[in-house]
């Protein structure tokens, strides 16, 4: 039915408005389907529903779209018998109304696109709608009994989630049209400004240190003027830093308002999808959302929508049991799906969980083998988590038949790919009989996170401040030292002590020394007392995702830029509180690599680890001595040319100490002359390798040779 060309310009606006109204009607229908609503609430819902349908009918008619007006009229007819006696809406009626709304929207969009002429005659669709609807008296009776007395029609296939248009079409006076890259560029500038603020803070601290140094010189009178000037500048700098901070916050708020929209805007189609799918599968499900008010980048939301649809469909299809089975298992007949959204700084945490049957790891293993996703030899080596992660592999499906919903082996691998495409990560946790949780962590462009910076040996590490409950110093009276691990008495409980250095593989495990800083770190209801060497301070930092080469290292959440431009790795609190598998370290040989070149350390480590060594690293002679004072090693590989203390000096120090006097030491140098070699061996080195010889693959052989010679001499 063609629309008057004069009115065509208004039809697009009507389509947008109709989408919004239909979404409201959909939510009201889903609400009316629920049990246990008070009569007052029911009455209000029915009144609102009637009003919305009437609006749709009137607006369509006023624009000459008689087909749409007729559909809305039929929907009003279906509603009428229930309105007079408000009660829970029977499912067949809800189905008919939802089906009718889908029809309404499809035709409205076609009119808006100028395809109204090509639409089929609505008579057939209307006749079907009427045929599907229970007779008025039956509908009222069904509502009164609260039971679906007639066989429910098969729900219409759920339409693709309807996206809400961002706004009304722009007019010249409505604002500016900006492209995504322009906004992204602004975000980058805000991030740079945040880094400038960090540098300003650092400069302020440097000025204060300079003033203190002057005071320490003792010439108080002579330096008074300079100190006053420095202190004044430091104060001004602090004020400037605070103002910059305010500007950064204001800019971020402004950008957020432009670029984000609340999560709830993508939830309505999800609610509808869950409802339709559970109907189709004979299940009952209810989706609850926590954090619907969180505002997220529009582009991120659009990309996430597909992943969420997959996860929720998966939860209804594979997770939730049939109502009768649930009741037999002592659960409520209606399955609970929960979507939890939380943003901490510039990290987004999204959790989709169900209270269904959970993942049967044994079934996953069997099916993965059957489908050729992995071999039996591989699965024999897998632990439970690795087996569970097989569900993310391409080609995996637990369905033995292909249905409309699943069974094609395309699903969770696509979800993982889309999350990883957003530089995020996805994990799954499941308890048999209790349900499954999918946890997504994603970076967002805006926002910063408070981070506590700590030091372990030479390594700076960031801890999300939200995970740090308290800090204290280690005291012998509050520590309980066992053979394999230590505990801290904290608030009447014994908390495991975790040495961050040992956990990161930087040093051997040792109980905390008296006065060493301990951080009480909590995550997911678990707590540990984390031993660090120093607490550097707290910073407000933008956490960026790690590159793909290190993204899978479970210890790290991301990296943030510090004031001098260097990166700080941010540790994942949930990794810190997770129990580690006790590794047999007694049989492994231990090597200490001392080199001021980061790449040389990395390369020597790689070669020695390949040879079965546990390798620790030191960037200077002084650090190596510190390490040797607390740890024991089978061999030291040391660079000859280092600043401050070279390899010869380090050997001299080692030979002075009884406990390291006979420790095998191999010197490595870029000098390949016999003079340099003789000098090194004369100084007490057990072996000497030029870098050229290392490049030729001699390192491991030399290490084993030196150790064997030392051993036979001993």
């Amino acid at each position, binding site marked *: 039915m063609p629309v008057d060309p004069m009115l065509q310009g208004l039809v697009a606006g009507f389509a947008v408005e109709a989408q919004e109204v239909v979404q409201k009607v959909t939510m009201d229908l889903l609400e009316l389907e629920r049990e246990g609503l008070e009569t007052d609430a029911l009455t209000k819902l029915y009144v609102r529903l009637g009003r919305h349908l009437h609006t749709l009918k009137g607006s369509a008619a006023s624009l000459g779209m008689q087909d749409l007006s007729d559909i809305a009229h039929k929907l009003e007819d279906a509603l009428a018998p229930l309105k007079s006696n408000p009660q829970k809406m029977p499912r067949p009626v809800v189905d008919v109304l939802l089906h009718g709304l889908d029809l309404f929207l499809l035709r409205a969009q076609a009119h808006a696109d100028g395809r109204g002429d090509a639409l089929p005659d609505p008579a057939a669709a209307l006749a079907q709608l009427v045929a599907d609807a229970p007779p008025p008296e039956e509908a009222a009776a069904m509502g009164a009994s609260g039971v679906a007395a007639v066989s429910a029609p098969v729900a219409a296939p759920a339409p693709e989630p309807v996206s809400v248009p961002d706004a009304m079409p722009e007019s010249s006076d409505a604002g500016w049209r900006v492209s995504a890259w322009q906004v992204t560029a602004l975000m*980058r500038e805000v*991030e740079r400004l945040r880094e400038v603020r960090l540098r300003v803070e650092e400069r302020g601290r440097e000025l204060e240190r300079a003033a203190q140094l002057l005071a320490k010189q003792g010439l108080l009178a002579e330096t008074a003027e300079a100190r006053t000037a420095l202190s004044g500048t430091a104060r001004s700098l602090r004020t400037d830093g605070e103002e910059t901070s305010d500007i950064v916050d204001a800019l971020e708020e402004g950008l957020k308002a432009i670029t984000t929209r609340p999560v709830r805007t993508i939830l309505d189609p999800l609610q509808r999808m869950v409802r339709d799918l559970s109907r189709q599968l004979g299940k009952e499900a209810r989706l609850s959302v926590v954090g619907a008010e969180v505002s997220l980048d529009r582009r991120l939301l659009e990309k996430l929508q597909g992943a969420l649809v997959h996860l929720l469909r998966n939860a209804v299809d594979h997770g939730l049991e049939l109502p009768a089975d649930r009741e037999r298992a002592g659960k409520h007949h209606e399955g609970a799906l929960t979507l939890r959204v939380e943003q901490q700084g510039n990290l987004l945490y999204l959790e989709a969980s169900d209270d269904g049957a959970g993942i049967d790891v044994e079934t996953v293993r069997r099916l993965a083998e059957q489908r050729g996703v992995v071999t039996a030899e591989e699965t024999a080596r897998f632990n439970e988590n690795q087996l569970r992660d097989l569900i993310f592999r391409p080609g995996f499906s637990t369905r033995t038949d292909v249905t409309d919903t699943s069974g094609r082996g395309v699903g969770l691998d696509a979800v993982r790919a889309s999350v990883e495409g957003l530089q995020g990560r996805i994990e799954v946790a499941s308890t048999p009989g209790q349900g499954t949780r999918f946890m997504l962590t994603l970076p967002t462009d805006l926002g910063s996170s408070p981070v506590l910076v700590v030091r372990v040996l030479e*390594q*700076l590490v960031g801890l999300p401040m939200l995970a740090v409950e308290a800090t204290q110093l280690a005291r012998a009276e509050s520590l309980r030292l066992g053979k394999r691990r230590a505990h801290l008495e904290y608030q009447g409980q014994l908390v495991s002590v975790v040495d961050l250095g040992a*956990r*990161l*593989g*930087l040093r051997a495990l040792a109980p905390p020394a008296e006065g060493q800083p301990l951080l009480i770190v909590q995550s997911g209801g678990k707590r540990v007392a984390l031993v660090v060497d120093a607490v550097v301070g707290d910073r407000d930092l933008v956490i*960026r*995702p*790690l*590159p*793909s*080469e*290190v*993204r*899978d*290292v*479970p*210890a*790290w959440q*991301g*990296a943030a*830029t510090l004031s*001098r*431009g*260097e*990166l*700080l*790795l941010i540790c994942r609190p949930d*990794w810190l509180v997770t129990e*580690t598998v006790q*590794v047999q370290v007694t049989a492994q040989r231990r090597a200490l690599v001392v*080199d001021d*070149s*980061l*790449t*040389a350390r*990395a*390369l*020597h*480590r*790689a*070669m020695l*680890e*390949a040879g079965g060594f546990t390798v620790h*690293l030191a960037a200077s002679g002084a650090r190596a001595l510190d390490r040797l004072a607390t740890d024991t090693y089978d061999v030291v590989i040391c660079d000859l040319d280092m600043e401050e203390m070279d390899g010869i000096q380090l050997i001299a120090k080692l030979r002075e100490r009884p406990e390291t006097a006979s420790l095998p030491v191999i010197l490595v140098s*870029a000098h390949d002359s016999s003079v340099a070699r003789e000098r090194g061996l004369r100084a007490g080195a057990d072996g000497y390798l030029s*870098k*050229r010889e*290392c*490049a*030729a*693959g*001699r*390192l491991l052989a030399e290490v084993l040779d030196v150790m064997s010679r030392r051993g036979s001499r001993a």
Partner: protein
Amino acid sequence: MKVTPRTLEESQEAEARELLERRAARLREQGESAVEEAVHWIAEFPLGEERYALSLESLRAALPLKMVSAVPLSAPHVVGVLRFQGQVLAALSLASLLGGHGWRQDPAVLLVVDRGDGELCALDCEAIPRPTTLPVSAVEAARVRAEGAVMEVFTQDRQLIHLIDLKRLFSATRGAGARHAR
């Protein structure tokens, strides 16, 4: 009649035009005298005792090796992470990736390269690479022969260059990225 330039700008402009004309003439002469062979531009550098190279088009930048933060528990070939143009990149040990054992000198340079999948990473290197060319025919022949990520290409003066195919190199190392916590 010789026209004397009136201003400094005009004088400079005239000089620049002359220079460009001379260059154009030189190039025209080359085109007439030499039969040019299609060439593949590479960035060549020493690795241990051998000469290695990567395609120049994959090279994005050469940076001094500093400001790299080590990543404990990462794979052995990961030197650390660094910031490059607002992105966090991984710095990787090229010697380790290629199964080599070391350098003659400690690497002082990081080469920022496109891995072949659109993502960037940095590779350590002893020195800033030298741009040079290889005949395309030799590169194609070596590509057919090569099974791994390194192609052995002989230059016209019979020098052996190991040309690294970054796409193959990174697809081979993918999946072996993480070393789990001890």
